[in-house]
């Protein structure tokens, strides 16, 4: 399939796609390059107060008494609040969704009331003239605690000997079973059955910028303006409105520059809700910025799964069935409002996803523990599902003595089988697994790499090649959250305003987190209207300005927000042509807009400059017919609805070298072939994929939040929690197949999470491929040197 046909203008007809498909640099990068961005902590406010939190030192303890006597006397302190006081202004929440049947969670308060359930949970707030003064006073809070039994291990949690929330009767937040039927029979009679248990370490996003919020309550208006490092301004507007009891229209959420999000900044955080409540109480602006240590303790964590997976196949190499048993632990609360049941649910939906077997059985439990909460983080569930699938697929290929690429070729869903329903119930519009595999093998020169690997093995150099095919959720419809009762918008809107000088202002409800949404919206708007990109200005991240929408999550910005911009751009162009037809006294059908001019559609002869059109429309409409009114601001919305999700597909490969003496893994190269539909800006897409891959490599090799048996986080700082740095990362080769979605005119699917989804599996398979001649195998991420040496029997 070639590029999407996007005829934008008459001249050049079918092939004129304007800026769409071009690697144009992002206009909004300039301010960031000069240190002149506006991150939330950069903003300045009169009478700003700073809040610091007194956090529980215990993983589970009853708060017997909190004494603020010394803290309130500390220099600069304005006020100190406990949970009950803040609860008078901010109501608690329960994070459940109706379509996750049976999910349960206790009420969570902005500041803990009565009991702390994880180390780091905020139990009191100190407000002072400066952050350092607030932190000084936090040290002076005296607390009396009664330690409670701690549940840290998820198997122990599932057994339920100790129940964390007595009212809930057991520790199971959510469970799901899925069975196509006939699975046990297939396993009983299959030629080959392979089984493996995989472990996935709990890790976290480590956004370069900590969570940040400035809440500014205006008592005269009973209005709240929140400057917030968030991915979902409208969702937060709704949340602040409902839980602080302020009318929705009186709440304005502004998300300016945001220093990395990756899903971390799309959730409701208790300390941020407390900050907003305190602004209401004190009637002044209040700021909270999570420092690095409290980020590790309170930003959502993710993953932490133990999963047993079985695969049955024939001697000929045909996969017949998958059987999954997944267990995941989420901390003491399901996180509001998306819930912490989604990741496990996605693992059930997606495991086995690229392959054409018809039998599938899955069982999944989500349990509570006394660790920090977990929730949706970049690629939600995908890294688990892809690693389970691709790990067990490689094991089956090994058992059959088949090349892993060949085994995949036999089993991937054929490119002409769509639309297709996978045994978990999810539907694919159109995927391109075989084209992607072929392109990958060509791009990486697979057979040559295999020959080199074999040659080097004779010299005791252990290289491994790992493949990972994947499917990915993008452009979610209301089926993701809305149907479950969450007030999270699956639709987005764009307003385009033609300015008198011939410029176009775009206001869109999808936010910019650095991935380049504002850049691609400028590309789409310029292309659709017929102006050059320097004439377009994009505004996002302000509920007081943009249309209503969901924001940035689940790889939806380009596919949903981009479509809204395209539709609005086309509507604006036709409205501009109406004005031009009146000014020129010509038939509208004879006209088009290109390169900032109204032109003759057939001859391309310039007829009217756009600034002249603007001048007449805005300042001399008296020269236009009495029955004509120009409409040069238009708004359009878009919601994907035909499919629950617009699935994409891709495949990655990793080349590694393992040192069997030290257990170190050297990443030599990484490849990713991705089909994300219409590519709007290849440069931005590639660098987003690469960033995602590196995040996935972090999960595979370095990152894990380690907890002691008492529920204490052992490595909650950047010296002990390792993240990928430039020195160890490989160059990453990207290539694309473009199968546009036919649900939209733009044809774009999502791409933001692809890299993270597949990289851990590719790296795991590469390591195990390298270790195969040494009869060793690793299945517990991250694959630290110690774990590799253990697998080799050397420690």
């Amino acid at each position, binding site marked *: 399939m070639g590029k999407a046909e996007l005829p934008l203008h008459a001249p050049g007809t079918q092939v004129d796609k304007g800026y769409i498909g071009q690697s144009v640099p992002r206009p909004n990068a300039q301010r*960031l390059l000069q240190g002149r961005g506006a991150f939330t902590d950069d903003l300045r406010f009169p009478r700003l107060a700073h809040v610091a939190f007194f956090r529980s030192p215990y993983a589970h303890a009853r708060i017997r008494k909190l004494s603020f006597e010394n803290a309130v006397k500390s220099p600069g302190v304005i006020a100190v609040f406990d949970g009950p006081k803040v609860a008078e202004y901010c109501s608690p929440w329960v994070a459940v969704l109706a379509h996750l049947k049976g999910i349960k969670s206790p009420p969570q308060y902005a500041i803990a009331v009565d009991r702390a359930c994880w180390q780091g949970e905020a139990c009191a707030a100190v407000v002072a003239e400066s952050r350092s003064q607030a932190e000084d006073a936090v040290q002076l809070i005296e607390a009396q605690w009664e330690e409670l039994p701690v549940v840290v291990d998820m198997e122990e949690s599932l057994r339920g000997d100790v129940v964390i929330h007595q009212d809930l009767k057991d520790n199971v937040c959510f469970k799901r079973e899925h069975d196509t039927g006939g699975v046990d029979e297939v396993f009983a009679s299959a030629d080959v059955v392979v089984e493996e248990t995989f472990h996935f370490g709990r890790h976290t996003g480590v956004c370069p910028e900590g969570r940040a919020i400035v809440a500014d309550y205006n008592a005269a208006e009973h209005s709240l303006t929140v400057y917030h490092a968030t991915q979902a301004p409208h969702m937060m507007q709704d949340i602040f409105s409902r839980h602080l009891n302020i009318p929705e229209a009186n709440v304005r959420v502004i998300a300016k520059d945001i220093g990395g999000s990756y899903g971390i900044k799309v959730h409701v955080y208790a300390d941020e809700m407390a900050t907003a409540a305190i602004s209401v109480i004190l009637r002044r602006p209040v700021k909270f910025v999570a420092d690095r240590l409290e980020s590790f303790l309170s930003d959502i964590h993710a993953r932490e799964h133990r999963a047993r997976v079985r695969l049955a196949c024939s001697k000929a190499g045909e996969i017949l069935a998958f059987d999954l048993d997944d267990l995941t632990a989420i901390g003491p609360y399901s996180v509001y409002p998306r819930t912490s049941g989604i990741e496990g649910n996605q693992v059930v939906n997606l495991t086995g996803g690229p392959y054409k077997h018809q039998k599938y059985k899955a069982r999944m439990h989500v349990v509570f523990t006394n660790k920090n909460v977990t929730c949706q983080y970049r690629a939600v569930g995908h890294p688990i599902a892809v690693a389970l699938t691709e790990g067990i697929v490689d094991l089956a290929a090994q058992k059959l003595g088949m090349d892993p690429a060949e085994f995949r070729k036999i089993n991937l869903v054929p490119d002409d089988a769509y639309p297709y329903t996978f045994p978990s119930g999810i539907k694919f519009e159109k995927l391109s697994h075989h084209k992607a595999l072929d392109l990958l093998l060509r791009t990486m020169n697979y057979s040559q790499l295999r020959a080199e690997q074999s040659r080097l093995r004779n010299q005791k150099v252990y290289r491994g090649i790992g493949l990972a095919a994947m499917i990915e959720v993008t452009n979610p419809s209301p089926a993701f959250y809305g149907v479950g009762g969450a007030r999270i918008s699956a639709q987005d809107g764009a307003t385009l305003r033609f300015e008198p000088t011939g410029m176009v202002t775009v206001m869109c409800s999808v936010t910019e987190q650095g991935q380049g949404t504002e850049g691609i919206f400028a590309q789409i708007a310029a292309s659709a209207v017929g102006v050059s990109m320097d004439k377009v200005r994009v505004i996002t991240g302000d509920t007081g300005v943009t249309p209503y929408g969901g924001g940035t999550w689940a790889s939806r910005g380009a596919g949903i927000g981009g479509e809204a911009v395209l539709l609005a751009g086309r509507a604006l162009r036709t409205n501009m042509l109406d004005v031009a037809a009146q000014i020129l006294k010509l038939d509208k059908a004879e006209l088009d807009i290109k390169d900032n001019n109204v032109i003759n559609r057939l001859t391309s002869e310039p007829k009217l400059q756009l600034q002249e059109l603007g001048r007449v429309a805005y300042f001399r409409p008296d020269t236009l017919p009495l029955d004509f009114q120009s409409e040069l601001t238009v708004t359009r919305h878009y919601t994907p609805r035909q499919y629950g999700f617009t699935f994409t597909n891709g495949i990655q490969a990793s080349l590694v070298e393992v040192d069997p003496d030290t257990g170190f893994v050297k990443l030599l190269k990484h490849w990713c072939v991705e089909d994300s539909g219409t590519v709007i800006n290849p440069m931005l897409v590639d660098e987003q994929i690469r960033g995602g891959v590196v995040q996935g490599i972090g999960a595979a090799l370095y990152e894990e939040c380690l907890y002691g048996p008492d529920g204490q986080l052992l490595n909650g700082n950047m010296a002990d929690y390792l993240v990928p740095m430039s020195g160890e990362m490989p160059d990453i080769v990207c290539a694309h197949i473009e199968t546009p979605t036919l649900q939209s005119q733009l044809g774009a699917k999502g791409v933001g999470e692809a890299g993270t989804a597949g990289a851990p599996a590719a790296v795991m398979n590469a390591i195990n491929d390298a270790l195969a001649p040494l009869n060793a195998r690793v299945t517990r991420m991250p694959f630290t040197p110690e774990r590799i040496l253990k697998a080799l029997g050397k420690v």
Partner: protein
Amino acid sequence: MEQALNVTMTVNGAQVTRSIPARQHLVDFLRDELGLTGSHIGCEHGVCGACTLRVNGEIVRGCLMLAVQADGCRVDTIEGLSDSKELEKLQKAFHEKNALQCGFCTPGMLMAAQDLIRSKKKATREEIRAHISGNYCRCTGYQAIVDAIEEAING
């Protein structure tokens, strides 16, 4: 009580004198007292490099140096080196190659990259990767950053 000291330093070419609390870090002083918010605070324990500054020509972590230690020093920040155009070539290469996404690490990354450019005429990709290995970027995967620095340094 917090002890404060009178300190004079030259920040982006302009002399400033302030009474500075002894415990205040240089990056906090620049951000909170001078409003130079281009230097970012990422970890406050010297790992992430977002606060990388130049003091007397050497790059330092603004979160590991106390402001009072800069008494008598020349301090250069991203804002100053942008206005003086010293970073122009690097910034152009970063922009053209999309060597930034969220931009939070970018000022520190540019300071580290410029330090390499000042010390070497040419650099291999490995040398570039090693030189910026103390600057954390979560968005890009580093490749475009290496590409951009390579272009700026090797032309």
